[in-house]
């Protein structure tokens, strides 16, 4: 650790290990181009973060529009076309612009090399290209919005998508580009994990979030190209009428669904695996206890990645897929539930006899366990063939995937964001507002979506602009829940934004974690570490002790922390 400099810029109490006002990656160079053309993974991660949060805001507003429209049967705000475009926009933005790049490209980009003790990802230029491809894809999404919107649903099912008059081609082009952005991130992460670990870090010394990001990257690399070709075929279908998917031209509409879900089911694991990785970190760090069953959790991530490829047909049980395939996919589908269950049990065992702090990231992690349990268990209903036939395309499915995607991924994303925020910015957020946001989102989310399980089991179909009066009460509750959730997000945004203005300065290790990112300063220097970081078991917290003067954790063996 370098010798402390005198405080600059009138910063308040600056704990050791905090580099605000000194040299760090944020001020290593200045000017717009130093960001736009940066090769530093940390800056790219931050740019991603700002971008995907903007996308999240857009998708969230679309969601609020949808929920508000549904507060009463019939027309509330706009007509059916408007509603259809709103839910399509909500789905497409949230899936392709927010949740898929969310954890890997934003948080992952920032922490992955730090976790490995590396200076950067293996291909920094590719990383930057990935970011700008994302921007490019987002621009296409905006173009499609500006040229009349899209009303196909995020799944782009043919033949509706090849016959509707709305702007399908721009948004599909956008998603095509976003696919390459995702591939580049995945490719980069695999190579980085393989090649840039420190010499003494074996595969089983990696933090579990690395296993999760690595498994995610495998899916990104192997599945996303199929999405690319699917979308290319869809564009060709519309532009040239090639007749692969459109029955009117001699094609096969169900084949499109095979193509689409061959990517989009593994993509579900692109969304949830990194979230599980973050939860493994949070549970261990905030219990100050070694993660339970490291090997099982690590292998279960890889297992989920691989099983994820052989279950896509469960999205097609009522689609006209043959009975034979329905049976095969139904049997294979249950295989995914085993590794997911393993993780839940291991997390609970980690909590046992821990020293459980109620800091904001941990509150998010604990709500993840409960929400993901509901999401996972309701998946069992949908895996059972005969029950799925009844529940398919109803609100039960909507609720199920929101419990996994929102209750799982978004919650873990927020947990990770609060967890690494001090490392990224060098500032602590206010715990009060942080905890309030976690509570509000938990309550609002359950109000919004638990009621939709009931709604779905009553037979309410999804993507309905209007509905039968008997469903009205449930929709009202759901809409109110959506607004409470939105309030929770506003509180979270407030908490993080205020921390930048008047947050306390963060120490190097506010939480007592032992993965390598906590071994460097907050924020880290341009090349991440001063000297070669020393890696050991990332879940052995015995070397760190709480220091009141630092308001964080310091190494026990450090002679003087200055």
């Amino acid at each position, binding site marked *: 650790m370098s010798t402390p400099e005198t405080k600059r810029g009138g910063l308040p109490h600056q704990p050791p290990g905090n580099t605000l006002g000194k040299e760090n990656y944020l001020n290593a160079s200045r000017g717009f181009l130093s960001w736009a053309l940066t090769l530093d993974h940390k800056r790219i991660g931050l740019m991603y973060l700002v971008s995907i949060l903007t996308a999240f805001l857009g998708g969230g507003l679309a969601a609020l529009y949808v929920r508000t429209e549904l507060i009463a049967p019939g027309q509330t705000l706009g007509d059916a076309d408007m509603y259809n475009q709103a839910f399509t926009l909500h789905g497409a933005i949230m899936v392709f612009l927010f949740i898929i790049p969310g954890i890997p490209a934003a948080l992952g980009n920032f922490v992955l090399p730090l976790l490995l003790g590396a200076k950067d990802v293996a291909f920094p230029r590719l990383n930057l290209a990935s970011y700008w491809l994302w921007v490019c894809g987002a621009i296409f999404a905006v173009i499609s919005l500006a040229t009349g919107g899209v009303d196909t649903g995020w799944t782009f099912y043919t*033949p509706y998508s*090849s*016959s*509707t*008059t709305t702007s399908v081609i721009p948004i599909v082009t956008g998603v095509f580009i976003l696919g390459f952005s995702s591939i580049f991130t995945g490719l980069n992460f695999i190579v980085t994990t*393989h090649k840039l670990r420190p010499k003494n870090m074996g595969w089983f010394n990696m933090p579990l979030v690395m296993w999760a990001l690595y498994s995610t990257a495998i899916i990104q690399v*192997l599945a996303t190209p*199929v999405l690319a070709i699917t979308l290319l075929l869809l564009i060709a279908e*519309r532009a040239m*009428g090639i007749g692969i998917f*459109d*029955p*009117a031209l001699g094609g*096969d509409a*169900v*084949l499109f669904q*095979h193509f689409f879900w*061959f990517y989009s089911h593994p993509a579900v694991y692109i969304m949830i695996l990194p979230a599980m990785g973050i939860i493994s970190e949070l549970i261990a760090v905030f219990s100050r206890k070694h993660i339970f069953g490291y090997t099982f959790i690590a292998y279960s991530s890889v297992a989920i990645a691989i099983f994820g*490829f*052989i279950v896509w*047909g469960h999205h097609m049980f009522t689609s*006209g*897929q*043959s*009975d*034979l*395939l329905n049976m*095969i996919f139904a049997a294979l589908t249950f295989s995914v539930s085993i590794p997911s269950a393993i993780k839940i049990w291991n997390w609970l065992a980690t909590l046992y006899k821990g020293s459980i702090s109620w800091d904001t990231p941990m509150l998010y992690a604990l709500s993840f366990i409960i929400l993901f349990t509901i999401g996972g268990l309701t998946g069992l209903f949908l895996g059972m063939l005969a029950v799925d036939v009844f529940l398919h395309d109803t609100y039960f499915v909507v609720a199920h995937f929101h419990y996994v995607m929102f209750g799982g991924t978004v919650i873990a994303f927020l947990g990770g964001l609060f967890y690494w925020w001090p490392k990224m910015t060098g500032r602590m957020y206010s715990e009060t507002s942080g905890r309030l946001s976690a509570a509000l989102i938990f309550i609002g989310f359950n109000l919004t979506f638990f009621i939709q399980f009931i709604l779905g089991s009553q037979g309410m179909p999804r993507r309905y602009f209007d509905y039968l009066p008997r469903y009205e009460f449930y929709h009202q509750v759901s809409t109110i829940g959506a607004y409470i959730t939105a309030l929770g997000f506003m509180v979270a945004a407030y908490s993080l934004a205020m921390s930048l203005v008047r947050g306390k300065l963060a120490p190097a290790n506010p939480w007592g974690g032992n993965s390598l990112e906590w071994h460097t300063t907050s924020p880290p220097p341009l090349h991440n570490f001063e000297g070669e970081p020393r890696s050991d078991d990332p879940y052995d917290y015995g070397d760190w002790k709480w220091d009141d003067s630092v308001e964080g954790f310091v190494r026990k063996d450090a002679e003087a922390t200055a």
Partner: protein
Amino acid sequence: MASSTDGKHVPHVVPLWILIGVLAILLILTWATVAVTSFDFGSNMNLVVAMVIAVIKAALVVMFFMHLVWDRPFNTVIFVSALAFVGLFIILALLDTGQYQPTMIPGYTAAGGVVP
């Protein structure tokens, strides 16, 4: 293969006779695959023969032109798993579409909706 202790990269050079020999075999196989089309092996055997030849050709290119025999084994793992996933995709899709073929309506053309 191409590693050394001090981290300096030492390339593996493929002997010229291997490269030219591989090309010769590839050309012969190309001739063969065209030639066998004039024989009828019955049912789908012609397709099988054509694919076997293509796989041999592809394997030669991958192993020698692309250095995979001398490369790190993990690169082989990547390539083979990519092929395996393609195979999985094709087999399951074929299995399904083959099953529901009888329900197809011959000569169907859509009656409503147009493409802009």
